[in-house]
């Protein structure tokens, strides 16, 4: 894996909000199939880094590439299309659409890409099954437990077969057992599909599911260690 070109490559990224530098010269790569944990205390810049890598936030300076695409100069529309087609997202509180059923929530990214309803829901059902929440397909997010909702969110992130999943504190709102289940299923699925994961967390037990970690402090990467497969 180390010989392959990285999927994501960031060099000397800078991003400032007001007087405070959120990113102060960050460089890192993400390769296909690897799970990279981004760790650090609150305010260290880890979420800003994730948002830049995912094309949500545009850095003020630096170089940022996804495969052969320049994410700094790409238009908003290009970045938006990239997020829909190539990336998946899991947030701390699931952020499922409350009016839709869990099945419809998982099918949503496919529907937004023009996949017909029947096909989208067939693929969504497959992922609900993989995440062991097939039984909540017809329920709305408000009717399921936090752990089930987060597994639905993981299914939604994976349904488009993304190259990279960005997970921001994916177990932050869950108890230990449910957090462990979400991480185990997420890592099993991405290991089988070769999907890379950028995992933002301040919890060591969650970071332990990664292949390596980068630790941020004051907008910079303190250390990068761990196994590279």
């Amino acid at each position, binding site marked *: 894996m180390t010989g392959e070109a990285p999927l994501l490559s960031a060099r000397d990224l800078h991003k400032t909000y007001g007087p405070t530098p959120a990113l102060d010269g960050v460089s890192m790569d993400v390769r296909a199939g690897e799970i990279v944990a981004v760790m650090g*205390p609150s305010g260290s810049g880890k979420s800003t880094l994730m948002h830049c890598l995912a094309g949500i936030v545009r850095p003020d300076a630096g170089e940022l590439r996804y495969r052969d695409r320049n994410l700094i100069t790409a238009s908003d529309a290009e970045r938006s299309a990239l997020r829909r087609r190539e990336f998946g997202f899991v947030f701390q509180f699931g952020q499922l659409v409350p009016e839709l059923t869990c099945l419809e929530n998982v099918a949503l990214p496919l529907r937004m890409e023009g996949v017909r309803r029947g096909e989208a829901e067939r693929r969504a059902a497959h992922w609900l099954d993989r995440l062991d929440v097939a039984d909540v397909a017809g329920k709305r997010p408000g009717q399921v437990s936090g752990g089930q909702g987060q597994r639905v969110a993981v299914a939604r992130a994976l349904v488009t077969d993304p190259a990279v999943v960005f997970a921001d504190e994916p177990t932050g709102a869950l108890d230990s057992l449910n957090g462990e289940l979400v991480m185990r299923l997420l890592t099993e699925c991405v290991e089988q599909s070769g999907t890379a994961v950028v995992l933002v967390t301040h919890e060591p*037990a969650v970071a*332990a599911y*990664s*292949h390596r970690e980068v*630790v941020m402090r004051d907008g910079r990467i303190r250390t990068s*260690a761990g*196994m590279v497969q």
Partner: protein
Amino acid sequence: MSLSHTLLGLLERGPRHGYDLKQEFDAQFGQDRPLHYGQVYATLARLLKNGLVEVDAVEHGGGPERKRYAITASGVSDVAKWLSQPERPEAYLNSTLYTKVVLALLTGRDAAAILDVQRAAHLDLMRELTRRKTRGDLADALICDHAIFHLEADLRWLELTSARLDRLAEKVRS
């Protein structure tokens, strides 16, 4: 872990030969470090001397004689006492790290780097335990969890110390 008490506890379930005790110990607790036969027989000899076990039977076969050991009443109360007492929390690792960090600050070395290296080593071990946990059975998972939670506590200490290095430097250098 007290090997004497563990072997006594296994014997409480019924008399065993030293060989069987080792096998049972390894199956239950020896995931990381299986026992040497020498450890088993030396421990049994000590327990015998202290009256906590007795020789239940001696078998004479073609080879050396085989002794079967049984727990005594004193042995049973010894195990019960051990089980009822809490273990002393281990504080040794953090005091060693604290010594290193203070020495680094006193000698003008990079104390944060010591914490970074330790964090990476802790996370590597947590990864290994997490992999083992997801592949093993419930008993293995519980043993791994125990180690993971301890590592997690150390990591919290590393993070807090890392955030307080400036204050610590002022204090130790004053």
